[in-house]
């Protein structure tokens, strides 16, 4: 009689204790991964959680295969669910999670082969597991939970009086998500490295590559339909595809109506130079990229213009060390000589020079400040 009374009082106290906590708090802990048993509960979540057992799960995956590690997570979760007791409100989410883990189990077997041969880097696991990470729900005390067989998300509720089953379900789902995230960790790292490389190459292209004028940008931007095949054939193939265009800077590009300036050495006893303006009408450039920057090779048809005499037609050659042009002979005071022209990328130089001047000024000011100290 006394024992029954004591049990009832204890149950009442626990109930009051749980009710004092907010279901919203448990939902928040579930979403952020701060899993904790309700105050006064005997539930021990540590044997399941990824953060507490990461080394163990990893060792298991590497020695007995990833399927064994997933099985271990599920077994620990099931054991805790047994301890937490039955919550009728959690039946739907529990069934959904059970089904999802079963589905992923099969997909993992198909991707990882027969254990224990397991190489995480070589694993081609490509199944959706995003729903295993519980998310914020529009209602307090509820989280968005695993998908059912018809691919709709279930709602996991945290009852004020008996949240233990929901807490364990959440911990099991999050731990499974963390495990699958670890499996694709190398892929995520490779993706980040790939985008970092694209940005590095663009920086090199903008800094050292042959600049693009407004017109060149426009014709390379696929706005001109079939005309692109004539004006920018290097870009046209990508324009005709429905696929997204690659993000990397161009490896092949067209030069079109590109103005530049240069100097032409005069091969006579004076040893002087003549200034020239040049327009490249059409050309093709090839860029290659590595950690040191960009290297450009290419050729274009161009015309040079001098302060005296008629324009000269010829060709411009792009090399990693600079641009040099060969143009037809001319008459006049400098006539009869081979016309060799070295050009500068005027278009790119404008912004580059401004940066250089600004940096120089800043350095000069800094030096003066240091000097005055």
């Amino acid at each position, binding site marked *: 009689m006394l024992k029954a009374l004591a049990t009832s009082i204890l149950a009442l106290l626990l109930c009051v204790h749980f009710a004092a906590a*907010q279901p919203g708090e448990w939902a928040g802990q579930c979403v952020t*991964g701060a899993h904790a048993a309700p105050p006064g509960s005997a539930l021990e979540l540590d044997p399941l959680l990824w953060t507490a057992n990461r080394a163990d799960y990893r060792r298991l995956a590497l020695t007995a295969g990833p399927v064994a590690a997933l099985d271990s997570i599920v077994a620990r979760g099931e054991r805790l669910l047994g301890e937490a007791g039955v919550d009728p409100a959690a039946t739907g989410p529990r069934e959904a999670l059970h089904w999802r883990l079963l589905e992923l189990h099969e997909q993992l077997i198909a991707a990882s082969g027969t254990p224990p041969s397991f190489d995480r880097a070589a694993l081609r696991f490509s199944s*959706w597991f995003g729903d295993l990470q519980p998310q914020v729900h529009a209602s307090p005390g509820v989280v*968005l939970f695993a998908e059912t067989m018809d691919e*709709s998300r279930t709602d996991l509720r945290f009852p004020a009086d008996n949240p233990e089953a929901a807490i364990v379900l959440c911990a099991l789902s999050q731990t499974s998500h963390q495990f699958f995230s670890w499996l694709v960790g190398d892929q995520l790292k490779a993706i*980040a490295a790939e985008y970092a490389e694209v*940005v590095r190459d663009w920086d090199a292209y903008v800094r050292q590559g042959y600049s693009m004028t407004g017109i060149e*940008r426009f014709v390379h931007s696929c706005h001109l339909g079939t005309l692109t095949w004539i004006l920018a054939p290097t870009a046209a193939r990508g324009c005709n595809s429905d696929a*997204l265009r690659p993000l990397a800077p161009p490896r092949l590009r067209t030069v079109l109506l590109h103005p530049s300036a240069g100097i032409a050495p005069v091969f006579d006893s004076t040893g002087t130079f003549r200034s020239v303006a040049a327009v490249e009408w059409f050309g093709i450039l090839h860029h290659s990229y590595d950690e040191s920057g960009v290297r450009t090779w290419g050729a274009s048809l161009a015309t040079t213009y001098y302060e005296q005499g008629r324009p000269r037609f010829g060709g411009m050659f792009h090399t990693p060390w600079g641009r040099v042009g060969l143009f037809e002979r001319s008459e006049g005071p400098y006539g009869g000589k081979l016309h060799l022209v070295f050009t500068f990328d005027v278009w790119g130089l404008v912004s580059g020079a401004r940066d250089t001047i600004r940096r120089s000024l800043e350095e000069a000011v800094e030096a003066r400040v240091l000097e005055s100290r």
Partner: protein
Amino acid sequence: MPTIAYLVHGMGAGTSSGDPRAEGEEWYRTPLKAVEWVASTFSLSEPQLVLPGTTTAPPGATEPDAIWVVPISYHEAFDEFRRGAQDRASAVQGIGSITDFHATKLASQEFLWVNCLDVLLWWADRAQAQKIATARVLEGITEIDELARSAAPGAVTRRILITHSLGNAAATYALSHLVGDPAWVNRGAFSHWFALANVAPFLLPLDQVYRQSFIPGKRGSLITAGLLHAEHELDPFPHLLPPRRFRPGSIAMNEAAWNGAASRHFYRFLDTRGIVAPPEKRPSPLDVHGFANYLLSEPVARGLAEVLRGGALSDEELDECGWPACREDLPALRCAGDADFVRVREAVRDYRDSDLDGGPATRVWLERLMTAAELLMAAEERC
């Protein structure tokens, strides 16, 4: 175990000369202050600013309630162009078959040069500016995700995308690339996406904007739990081309799935009002389109707080925070009730209700873009 909130800026984040902004004046300072205000109002942990390129995690990164605010910049792609444009009008000639009239206008007004040129370049210069911008967005997102994963290995990390204005188009295009990376898709790339003043449908094909991979809460979507789309009642920019404005479920493009997402509250439209600024800042009429004003609006601030803390707020909790009355302490626009401002309100309403036909021809949307900017500039003068 941080929650990473990526802030992706809209137009006008760069400078007129193309030179970098002075330290402390960067575009993200004001939106960051807005997020800080939201965090302090709802008693969340203090947001930590984490800039792309950072190699060490801020202190407290492993705490479950840690919040990282990551500004994603891509305006360098446009600044590079502005830096090289000695003669502004001639520099923009040829871009997107712009007319002489628009080129002159763009070049002669500072506000248009800093703001509208970004939109024009992003749309027209697909060969360089758009690619650089996209690569920078993706680099910023993946780099900081790597930092979080290395700082707290195996811990729960959540990612939230908050995009503003042109940033919506930039992010939409960037995420279209991320769709091709199965590891990012399969783990659930972002829990929530706050799309503020979304202009993506004006600049991108509709099948990209309303694609399956963006339908929140759907299997295989990049957005696992919620897309919150906000428009300010006085902001003309989300109505650039009224027939194409962002309206998931009303366009014959995955219509049923979008409507399903809306009925389950995975997609929500947030109608925002009022013009306020973070503490110690002064709001201006231009802020109807401002990033911080959107963040501080009642539905966005509350939604953001709920996502950052990891759970919806109950009525009792809102009462404890003094919500929404506490918003009244924020600096508000003084002239909002003046007669002149009422005329602005009417002008914006006329603009939004314009019945435009046709697709996104450059001169149509550019004209509309400049008109929208001028509406706000006129309001600024009157206030």
